[in-house]
């Protein structure tokens, strides 16, 4: 940044003639409008942000828009965040660093890094000097402490910049007095403020001088896009060094005094409950065992090591009550979904029209991360402290308080960086369970779920059917209807409360359209958008069967919906004798999605001749204020499908992937690329390999040798991610954006390679390619032959 520009900036800040709140121009949605915030009273500089609603461009779309084009889940979450974001604050420390506790959870998606980048840019401080930590549960934030829906950057981007800008202004004001020059003549860089005579003073030296004894309201304008030096440039993660040296601490790595390893012996059938432990005395005498108590979910054991907990669980003789789905299996649940399916609107084919009817089924899938459900809890008579990876810590705090009979303010909830989430950490199951056990044992506990507990008793993505009916006349599409019917998705993690309290504020037409829908139907309607001009488009969800433990899994409804719709789009293209790309380009609705599609087609050499049993597939998805397109090549030759790797599901191999992502304003392209690559691996697993099988009231899967998430032998050897620049100032979501088009492109490629459209996903769900592990005991024995497999 040149001196002149800085001077102009500073001048503007103190003479906000452009601060009329009407917004700027030239492609920047925020422009030079001003924002309000506070310098918070205290002994060091603390700046806090309050901000006016981010202007939302009114959609101008010729055909009838679907709801998400006007107002989507991102808007809803962002609006929910508005009233309380004023409490977001940045502190300038005497060592010259800035610190910020983000009221969100870092689960691997990279928000501490991207947030540090945003702050660094606005503060003119090196990224390494910005310390972003995770805020504990802050009940005063009400609805504004939920990490989900790929919404973190969408909702926090503006308020954290405002806080940073206020801090920088306060530093400039203090420096003006110290250096004896007007603010307009000072420049800031790398954490220093420089006067025209070359004298400098550091932010650290100004931290207390810039502090205000009283809280005062101030006004700022934010930096312009052209002045950004950090945002938009690739940056490595702030925690990479800690991660690769084993120093990154997850919940189970924390040193909490007396919090000994604790596990739970769980029932053989889903949601069973314990009646009685018959051999308590024997268990209590086992090596290392300290405490044994009964809780609603099973028999808890606390021991010197987790290994001794596993041994104790395997010896327990427990009488169990029945579970919630006794006797049920995949096919009975599927039959229930079929009965609950709602009809299409277009009943009969007009005489001259063509119609495609397709029906797809998607199995239960596990959203479990590699770090299992876990939490440390120390519950005392009049207080409790919890350490866990929690995406909705305020609700966890409420639930824990209720579970152990304390007031909410007596429960301290620390949010710890998680070993993955994928939707799993939206719920505080392990934290609540740990608190109950700690209360009963009257001791601190370090609770860990066994891997086997995750698919068998943990939360799953529900089973879903998706039916599509498309009607075509000549070269036009008259209608496209999609009906998803799903086992109930549990939204009791707080998004429901957000919807209830925010919908009143949504644009009137949106509120009217959504009024009366259930939470899940509302979320479905807020997230699903078919980016094609297909005449009368309707996409609806109906739910049935609330007996399962479910939750949102990386992308909620979209991967299944996209697989079904994009497969049907290929079928429609075939019927019209058009190439799949040509067909999509003809009907695509918006230019940003089109640009992504054209990019992957070009970079991926769409349409090149493929040998037998190999094919390309292409698909798009629009969500999270952006779009993605994916092109894949798949190999389904028998020699590939049947390749042998010990204890592995091999199957078809995707050999090449080209992705294009338009995520709006990109904060960290390197992080976005990582999220897209990871999203692809999820999409690949959803279509080809990963599912849970329900048999007679039990899920069969118990570990990673049963639940086939993508492994190196499934990974494409070439994966290119192209990041589009739509020239907007609105960041989009990244964490989930890569999954749907990936899952769909793989499905489309597979269908073309084998010459048949699959109707059940993942494609290998029909066969069980493993021997189920025991249900009693509920956890497998730890092997002892590890030294045979050294390499």
């Amino acid at each position, binding site marked *: 940044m040149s001196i002149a520009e800085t001077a102009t900036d500073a001048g503007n800040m103190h003479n906000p003639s452009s601060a009329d709140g009407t917004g700027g121009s030239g492609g920047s949605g925020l422009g030079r409008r001003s924002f309000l915030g506070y310098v918070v009273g205290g002994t060091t500089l603390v700046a806090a942000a309050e901000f006016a609603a981010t202007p939302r461009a009114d959609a101008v779309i010729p055909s009838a828009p679907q709801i998400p084009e006007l107002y989507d889940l991102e808007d809803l979450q962002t609006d929910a965040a508005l009233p309380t974001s004023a409490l977001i604050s940045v502190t300038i420390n005497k060592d010259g660093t800035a610190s910020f506790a983000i009221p969100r959870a870092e689960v*691997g998606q990279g928000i501490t890094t991207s947030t540090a980048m945003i702050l660094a840019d606005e503060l003119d401080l090196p990224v390494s000097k910005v310390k972003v930590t995770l805020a504990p549960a802050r009940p005063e934030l009400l609805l504004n402490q939920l990490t989900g829906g790929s919404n973190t950057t969408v909702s926090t981007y503006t308020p954290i910049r405002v806080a940073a800008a206020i801090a920088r202004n306060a530093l400039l004001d203090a420096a003006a007095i110290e250096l004896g020059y007007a603010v307009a003549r000072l420049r800031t860089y790398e954490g220093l403020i420089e006067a025209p005579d070359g004298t400098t003073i550091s932010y650290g030296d100004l931290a207390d001088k810039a502090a205000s004894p009283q809280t005062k309201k101030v006004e700022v304008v934010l930096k312009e896009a052209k002045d950004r030096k950090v945002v938009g440039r690739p940056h490595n993660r702030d925690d990479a060094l800690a991660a690769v040296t*084993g120093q990154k601490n*997850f919940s189970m790595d924390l040193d909490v005094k007396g919090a000994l390893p604790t596990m739970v012996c769980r029932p053989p059938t889903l949601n069973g409950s314990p009646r009685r432990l018959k051999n308590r005395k024997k268990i209590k005498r086992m090596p290392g065992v300290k405490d044994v108590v009964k809780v609603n979910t099973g028999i808890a054991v606390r021991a010197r090591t987790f*290994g001794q907990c596993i041994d104790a669980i395997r010896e327990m003789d427990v009488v169990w009550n029945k579970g919630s789905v006794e006797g049920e299996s995949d096919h009975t649940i599927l039959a229930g979904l079929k009965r609950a399916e709602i009809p299409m609107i277009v009943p009969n084919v007009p005489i001259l029209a063509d119609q495609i009817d397709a029906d797809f089924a998607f199995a239960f899938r596990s959203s479990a991360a590699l770090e299992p459900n876990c939490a440390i809890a120390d519950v005392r008579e009049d207080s409790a402290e919890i350490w866990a990876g929690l995406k909705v810590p305020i609700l966890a705090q409420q639930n824990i308080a209720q579970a152990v009979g304390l007031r909410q303010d007596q429960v301290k909830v620390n949010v710890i960086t998680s070993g993955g989430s994928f939707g799993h950490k939206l719920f505080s199951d392990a934290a609540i369970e740990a608190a109950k056990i700690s209360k009963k044992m009257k001791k601190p506990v370090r609770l*860990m779920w066994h*891997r086997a507990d995750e698919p068998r008793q943990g939360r799953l993505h529900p089973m879903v059917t998706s039916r599509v009916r498309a009607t075509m006349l000549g070269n036009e599409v008259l209608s496209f209807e999609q009906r998803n019917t799903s086992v109930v998705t549990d939204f009791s993690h707080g998004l429901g409360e957000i919807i209830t309290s925010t919908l009143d504020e949504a644009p009137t037409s949106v509120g009217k359209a959504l009024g009366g829908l259930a939470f899940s139907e509302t979320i479905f309607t807020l997230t699903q958008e078919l980016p094609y001009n297909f005449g009368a488009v309707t996409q609806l969800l109906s739910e049935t069967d609330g007996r399962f433990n479910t939750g949102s899994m990386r992308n909620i409804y979209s991967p299944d919906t996209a697989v079904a719709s994009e497969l049907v789009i290929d079928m429609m293209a075939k019927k019209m004798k058009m190439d799949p790309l040509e067909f999509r380009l003809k009907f695509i609705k918006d230019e940003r999605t089109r640009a992504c599609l054209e990019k992957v087609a070009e970079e991926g050499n769409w349409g090149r001749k493929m040998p037998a049993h190999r094919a390309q597939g292409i698909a798009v998805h629009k969500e999270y204020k952006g779009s993605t397109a994916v092109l894949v090549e798949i190999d389904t030759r028998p020699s590939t499908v049947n390749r042998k*790797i010990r204890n592995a599901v091999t199957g078809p191999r995707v050999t090449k992937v080209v992705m294009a992502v338009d995520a709006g304003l990109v904060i960290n392209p390197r992080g976005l690329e990582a999220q897209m690559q990871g999203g692809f691996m999820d999409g690949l697993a959803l279509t080809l390999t990963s599912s849970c099988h329900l048999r007679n009231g039990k899920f069969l899967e118990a570990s990673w040798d049963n639940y086939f998430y993508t492994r190196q032998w499934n990974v494409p050897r070439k994966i290119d991610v192209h990041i589009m620049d739509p020239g907007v100032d609105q960041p989009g979501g990244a964490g989930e954006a890569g999954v749907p088009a990936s899952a769909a492109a793989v499905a489309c490629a597979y269908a073309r390679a084998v010459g048949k459209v699959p109707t059940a996903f993942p494609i290998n769900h029909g066969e069980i390619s493993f021997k189920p592990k025991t249900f009693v005991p509920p956890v497998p024995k730890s*092997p002892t032959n590890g030294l045979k497999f050294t390499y």
Partner: protein
Amino acid sequence: MPKQTFILNGKPVTVNVNDDVRVLWVLRDLLGVTGPKYGCGINVCKACTSHINGKAFNPCSVKVGDLKKKDRVTTIEGLPDTVGKKLHPMQQAWIDRDVPQCGYCQPGQIMAAVATVKKVRREGRQLRESDLDEIRNICRCGTYARIREAVEEGARNMR
């Protein structure tokens, strides 16, 4: 209670614990060495991958009683010392490629990568794509593409 003695990250350690407790829990629960992670406990996910006498092994599936006094166990915490540097070239490659997302599996991934490179060198050959295909460590964030790049870069810089 029996005394268990072995060499951990270059230093002899002694722990009082029964023979049948698996090494992973001795490391994590008794010695506070938390680099090796739990992900399955049955030698499937490989998140606990460490080295014994320079070769990869999974401490979740080895009884501490099966370790001999002279056995050298190296966890991610002790990897840099094996090359006498602040970081092993494989760790540096992981940083250069910005591999970790949540980071939970990465200590195990790096230990597996180092062992894989050493193994192909013992076999007197170059690293192949098929060697990368056979790395069993799960990454639920799906960082596999960058892992492959980093293993190749790390291999180039390993002596």
